[in-house]
């Protein structure tokens, strides 16, 4: 995995976030308390003079790990986040596509409508998945949250001024250029607080965090950031291999994204 220049990445992300804040009336950001969206918050603090200027949404299906809830409370207080917790309905038998596709999206639609958000910052990265590699920095979604990926707007030369579908919203992707290892290098350099689940306990750790139903840990002895970075330098395995919903059928990620899954 290639380690990119952190200062360059940081500047690109700051520019995109400031652009979103200027262009849209009512911006919010999704926070899963994972490493990427927490890094996004750290970047927002740099872009906006030390404070995160938009509301932060956690779509809470009630089955996240206890460590994740603790981390949420602690950081929300420390960084004075304007946190919106939106509960999603979860049935015990649900997992994978049904869960991520239906539940989380329904909850997200509800909160977007209630607050009237017109732009949503989502911390996806191109290297996570082939489909995510096809995203734009600023990307419209229809009023049904659909991603019209067969006809994406042109995006070049600092022009991110694609039009908004009536009743739709804009997804903003400030972390699109980052690689997984860059996130860790940045967390280390900037001392970004991080969810303890990423660190190895009894020979396993979580490399990517979903909820308790769908995430499985990987075998790893990396119990600190340096060891994680070392592990990633040599890995030949995909980051999301512990995520069930990516695997169910061919093109599942495409379906999830077309449906508005983050």
């Amino acid at each position, binding site marked *: 995995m290639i380690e990119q220049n952190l200062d360059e990445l940081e500047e690109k992300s700051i520019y995109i976030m400031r652009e979103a804040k200027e262009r849209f009336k009512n911006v919010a950001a999704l926070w899963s308390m994972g490493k990427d969206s927490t890094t996004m918050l750290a970047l927002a603090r740099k872009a906006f003079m030390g404070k995160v200027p938009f509301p932060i949404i956690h779509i809470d299906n009630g089955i996240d790990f206890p460590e994740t809830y603790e981390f949420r409370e602690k950081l929300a207080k420390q960084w004075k986040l304007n946190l919106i917790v939106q509960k999603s309905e979860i049935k015990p038998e649900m997992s994978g596509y049904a869960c991520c596709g239906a539940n989380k999206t329904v909850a997200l639609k509800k909160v977007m409508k209630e607050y009237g958000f017109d732009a949503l910052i989502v911390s996806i990265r191109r290297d996570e998945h082939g*489909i995510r590699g096809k995203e734009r920095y600023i990307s419209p979604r229809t009023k049904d949250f659909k991603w019209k990926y067969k006809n994406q707007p042109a995006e070049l030369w600092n022009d991110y001024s694609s039009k908004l579908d009536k009743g739709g919203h804009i997804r903003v992707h400030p972390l699109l250029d980052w690689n997984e290892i860059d996130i860790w290098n940045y967390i280390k350099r900037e001392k970004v607080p991080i969810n303890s689940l990423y660190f190895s306990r009894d020979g396993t750790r979580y490399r990517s965090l979903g909820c308790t139903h769908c995430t499985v840990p990987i075998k790893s002895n990396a119990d600190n950031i340096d060891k994680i970075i070392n592990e990633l330098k040599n890995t030949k395995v995909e980051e999301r291999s512990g995520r069930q919903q990516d695997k169910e059928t061919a093109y599942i990620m495409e379906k999830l994204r077309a449906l508005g899954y983050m």
Partner: protein
Amino acid sequence: MHIEQITMLGHKDHGKSTLIGSLLMSTGSATEERIDDARNTSKRLGRQFEPAYILDAFSEEREGGLTIDTARAQVKYKGKAFEFIDVPGHEELIKNMLSGASYANTAVLVVSAARGEGIMPQTKRHLFLAKMLGIEHFVIAINKMDAVQYSQDAYEPLRNEIAAYLDSIGVHSQRVNFVPISAYSFDNLVSKSKNMQWYRGKALMDLLLTCHSKNVAEDMALRAIVQGTVETESGMAYTAKILSGKIETGSTVRILPLGKRVVVKSLYVKGKKAKNAKAEENIAIGVSQDMGNIRGSIISNSAQTKVAKAISTMLFFVKPVSGAAELRFNGNKTNGTITVDRIIDTTTGSPKSTQKPKALDAGECIIRLNGKVAVEEFSSFRGLGRFVFYKNDEFAGIGVIEKVLG
């Protein structure tokens, strides 16, 4: 680590995505899972293994055997890092091609030598566009040599025709490397192929090692685009992105098109107070005078940055437009009126005997601007010498400024 961004260019089906897929595999840059996924998909679709599926991730792309939208993949080779940008070769998808290729400084043109393929409309059009986008380095890869028994006789005519075309659009072909390859069979990708002893040059990746784009000069004059405002401890500040040069607290800067000179009272970089900032950084500045909403204004201490009422341009039409259009400079909108001087056929580089543009033509045009805009000639500073244009809220093309007409 510097990452050289390299765009693929070329007509549909000539092997751009396959080439990136094969480069990922032969440099050990793709995970087993992505390769297996491509392999399984090929099997499921009853096809030979298609390395292109490592890039082409949408179901429509895989089933249809084409790239719909741009994607990227990174490769490390001999201590250097590259990011390959895949683009679609279909002419209907040229807006996606531009969205990808615009990030690159180097291009690899893929031309298929297979029978019935050869030099096609997008082969030359993509080169024309690459020149317009300001791409500096070109490598020409003549692909599918396996399909023509690796014969030099199939290679030479293609090589010669492309070389002549490059010269005609102002790219010195003598400084451009040509390499015969088979993306599918890995010939001349990372190691020299035994199948083409007649080829004396290096393998593709070794040719790319010499393509290195310059960093933005910090020792140039200050240029920055104003993005908006942000609240700081010392009140409202303007946010801006520095394109070239440096800025310091206490210095005087010129705000265009207003033409005001203001003093930088406070400066913030990454949310913290700073004494100075340089190219590529996003800043916030408190200044000696409140100028209201100046989003889209240019901070420039360069004499080359001028306030324009009219510009002489080269346009590329994704949709045919003349008369009124909306121009967007770094995202900022200005209305203007386009008058066509001369239309250029982008598949030949020669002028057409009409003044009515068709989609995918280029044109030398004069644009009268309704408002004042601070711009620069593309040849003196790219970041301020280019724009996109829209008609009825639809993306209609790109333009570069050849001359500022005052």
